């Protein structure tokens, strides 16, 4: 990410070290990743060791050093979704996108990741595509959704 943009985000948070999570969130949202260069620059601006910034970026699952997709697919692995068949939904997602959990498609359109619970336990299995959550999924339903998404965004296999 360009240094100017990072500088603007850090200034918005008044160079407060405590706001680093919010800073990382904003950079991750815009850039879809936290590049080493960005982490170094944040450390420099906040006057803290790079190791600390790197530590945070790898400790918290919301952040990623590698590029996430334009559409971030988050699969709920909460106990309720698990009991109600999340595994078959996960398998369908993995095979349709040819991805493992934590990976991104070559064209950076989609990334797949697991979250521990989306808090929608009565209507699972759930998968969130960015801010849109699809409830009550099974193999057929998720495959239909993926087909529609592929058509809308161009092929991404």
């Amino acid at each position, binding site marked *: 990410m360009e240094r100017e943009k990072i500088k603007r985000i850090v200034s918005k948070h008044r160079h*407060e*070290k*405590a*706001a*680093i*999570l*919010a800073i*990382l*969130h904003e950079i991750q949202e815009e850039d879809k990743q936290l590049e080493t260069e960005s982490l170094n620059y944040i450390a420099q601006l906040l006057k803290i060791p790079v190791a*600390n910034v790197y*530590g*945070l970026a790898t*400790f*918290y*699952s*919301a*952040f990623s050093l590698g590029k996430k997709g334009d559409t971030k697919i*988050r699969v709920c*692995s*909460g*106990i*309720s979704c*698990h*009991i*109600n068949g999340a595994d078959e939904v996960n398998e369908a997602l993995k095979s349709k996108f040819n991805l493992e959990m934590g990976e991104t498609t070559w064209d950076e359109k989609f990334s797949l990741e697991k*979250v*521990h*619970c*989306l*808090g*929608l*336990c*009565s*209507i699972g299995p*759930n998968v969130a595509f960015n*801010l*849109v*959550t*699809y*409830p009550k999924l099974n193999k057929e339903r998720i495959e239909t959704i993926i087909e529609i998404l592929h058509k809308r965004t161009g092929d991404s296999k």
Partner: protein
Amino acid sequence: MKIKTMGDLDKLREAGLKSLAPKQLKISISMSTCGHALGADILYHELVKEKAKQGLKISIGQTGCSGFCNLEPMAVLRLHGRPPLLYTQVTVKKVKRIIQDIKRKKITKQGLLCTIGSDSVSGEPDPALNNIPDYKEVSPFKDQHRRLLENCGIINPLSVSEYVAMEGYSALYKALYQMDPEVVVDEVIQSGLRGRGGAWFPTGIKWDMARKAQHKEKFVICNADEGDPGAFKDRTIMEGNPFKLFEGIVLAGYAIGSHQGLIYLREEYPHTYEFLNDAVYTAKRYGLLGKNILGSNFNFTLKIIRGGGSYVCGEETALMDSLEGEMGDPRLRPPFPIEKGLWERPTIVNNVETLANIPHIIEHGGESYAGIGTEKAKGTKILSVIGKIKQPGLYEVPLGTNLEHVIFNMAGGPLNGSQIKAVQVGSPFGNFLSGEKLDISLDPETLRSMGSMIGSGVIVVLNQDTCLVDILLHTLSFFVEESCGKCVPCREGVFQMKEIMTAIYEGRSTMEDLTSLHDIGGMIKDFALCALGGGAPSLILNGIRDFRKDFEAHITTGKCSWTS
């Protein structure tokens, strides 16, 4: 408009009552995260279009979730002179039909669950509604004692006036003008309220110590890092009635002498984050946050902080690390947060559900609050009943309610008439109880005497075709992924337990592996730094004890006992 006097509050209450009992037809769609997932936003926009197209004289509003997401989207219909009507699983087609019928002076029965005969909004008895039950008589609301969820799914969560019409902010007004901080603390002590996040520490005692701590700067932290998989009660309160939570937080600040509050919200709730920020903005505009709250001399600011997606940050000391911009590592106590908390200042950390209890306690008194519950656990608890159950959702019941009653009478029993194999109360750490042992009182003491816990109130129901080895392995994977890595017993020990459990699940093990699980588990229990590491082995070891058949089947045949 800023509320400064009792007169302002009265005016607002009147406006709220009008909004809740409008002269012209009003349809409110529930638009929480779950409603959105099930098409509430499409429904809302279609309704707006339909209104314009037909020139309908109706108003369109919104509500939050009532705790039964599988019945979403819900719609509350308000007709002049009648109690509100609650429709479930509403679609565009259904809502058009409802409007058509009203034009013909008819009430659509299809999808109509009940009337909402709440005190302040009820209308006259109505022959047209003869066969429609009140929501207190109908499943899934029947037998609930909705103190915390009373407004969820009924009022517009972002309307201050509607909340005020439901007694909102009268507790805060009373406290600011008629009660000294120590009296507020005394009421909370009297109430017997204990922390609902899972630790069950007496709230009033925590507040009392924080109040007595000498420091200019103190903090109130609301723990909204609802991380227990299966829990969504805090989300439901925050999205269904955020001002009730804010009122509780400001009361906490007033009681301990703090002027700064923070809500630490889990990262997995992006809608809730936007929503709470809107609510903070609105509360500021009404003078319910910021300077001179309700016209008094008391100032209090509130900020919403997003977490980073880490379960351990739900533990209060790790949470404070996270707020300070660090990795979430549980700290050794003492010092306790009430002495040296956030930025080494006296700090109280309370769960969303705990704080949502405060307005009721201040409004009606601690003694009255303590009127329900058990001897040692007072008030209600929101249970999140999920899994293989007919009507999953949030059930708010007095502490001490019978588990069997909740599962069979309130939540409709196991799915498709199957048999219950096990129930986990207090997921993810609580033990799996076998299906025959459900005649127990739901309160922390009873569960503890059984070697388990009530935790944050997640109840997972498993039926005959679930395998305990699979479920326990799934839970163990969660612990491994969420271990913060600070202490070796948890980081390495729980990981090793998972490796062994995986081998058992896949049929690559011998009976000796059960002994290894015992040995490693015992070591972790003795030496892990916090409850995350210490809780994992108990769950597995108790599972082996109570569901040994499932383990033996996997070890000897490599699969579950009932598959051929």
